[in-house]
């Protein structure tokens, strides 16, 4: 664990990319934690949504890229719905996911994974959603 962190400046391009494709101004966040408090998937997250925004504000993208949280966001839009600062957090987290999976070989869910999870009741919707969210 690294205790002392130096605000990195070599991740600006990734930060800029996240800003652009999400269309979100992260500086609007006042860290009220409303997003995290209402997040139904927070039990599966190592970093809470408000912490993700804080880390982005500090330029610490690496920590977010290595978190479980971004893959366990269900895009349920509760955070977006309730944010008092009009921040579309769901879009922001999607942008972070895309920043990773748009890199070659970084897809999280591949056709080879399908046999392992499929059952006869699973609606097509699940697989299509899975490929849209975790694969490029």
């Amino acid at each position, binding site marked *: 664990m690294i205790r002392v962190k130096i605000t990195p400046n070599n991740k600006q391009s990734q930060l800029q990319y996240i800003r652009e494709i999400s269309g979100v101004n992260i500086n609007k966040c006042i860290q009220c934690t409303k997003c995290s408090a209402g997040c139904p998937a927070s039990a599966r997250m190592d970093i809470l949504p408000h912490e993700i925004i804080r880390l982005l504000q500090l330029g610490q993208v690496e920590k977010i890229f290595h978190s479980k949280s971004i893959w366990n966001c269900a895009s*349920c839009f509760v955070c977006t719905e309730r944010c008092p600062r009009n921040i579309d957090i769901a879009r922001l987290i999607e942008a972070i996911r895309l920043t990773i999976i748009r890199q070659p070989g970084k897809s999280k869910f591949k056709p080879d994974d399908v046999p392992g999870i499929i059952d006869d009741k699973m609606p097509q919707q699940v697989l299509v959603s*899975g490929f849209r969210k975790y694969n490029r």
Partner: protein
Amino acid sequence: MMYSYYPGCTLKTKAQDLERFALISAQVLGIELAEQQDWQCCGAVYPLAEDEIAGKLSAVRSLAAAHSKGEKLITLCAACHHVIKRVNADMYSNEFVRKRVNNYLQLPKNYNGEAKVLHYLELLRDDVGFSKLAEQVRMPLTGRKIGAYYGCLLLRPSNVMNFDDAENPSILEDFITALGATAVKYPFRTECCGGYLTVNDQEANEMAANIINSAIGLEVEEILTACPLCKYNLEKELGTNTKVRIVYFTELLAEALAIK
């Protein structure tokens, strides 16, 4: 009244009940649903990134087709509804998306978000009217304790979906009441079931469990849904538990209309 109807992939395969009961009920209620020709998969999830255009094209094809016929576009699956409704909002108010999509599609006429998209439930509420529906009920579901499960995609984000109050909705309860059953409002009725997360994490789904426990806690016997994915997640979590049954809203509709 004539409507364009968009079914979606899941309804033609794993969720045939959702569609079948909807279509026979529509006939009884005098609603003419004409399935669109050459509809394509909506993509299941709305592309959230600003730069994703391709994922929005199929929704626009359906929207433009309905608009050119001068008909409202009716959806049934919650996921399809979410995608089509949000893409329509983009076409209406997002210049960047509108320009690119129109450039790509080269439709006979540019599409600018003019079509009206209604979920089947909105059609019942706004165009038919729940009081009119109640009059058509042949076999009221009297005494049955039914809990509505809204999930995410119909309600949020409310400024685009405009479906109902996102925190305190009532459309499904009003529907249940119209069918003569007892609507039970349980606290987790608008929480997420976990959605597509099953792809990433095959472990226990505490999100679905919370919903089921919340409903069972208020003695709900049937949980009503409009989404095949919600039904799948809830049933998977339920396993062999028979305290509560997960059912499509259209199935209950057909039952109350005595055509099931």
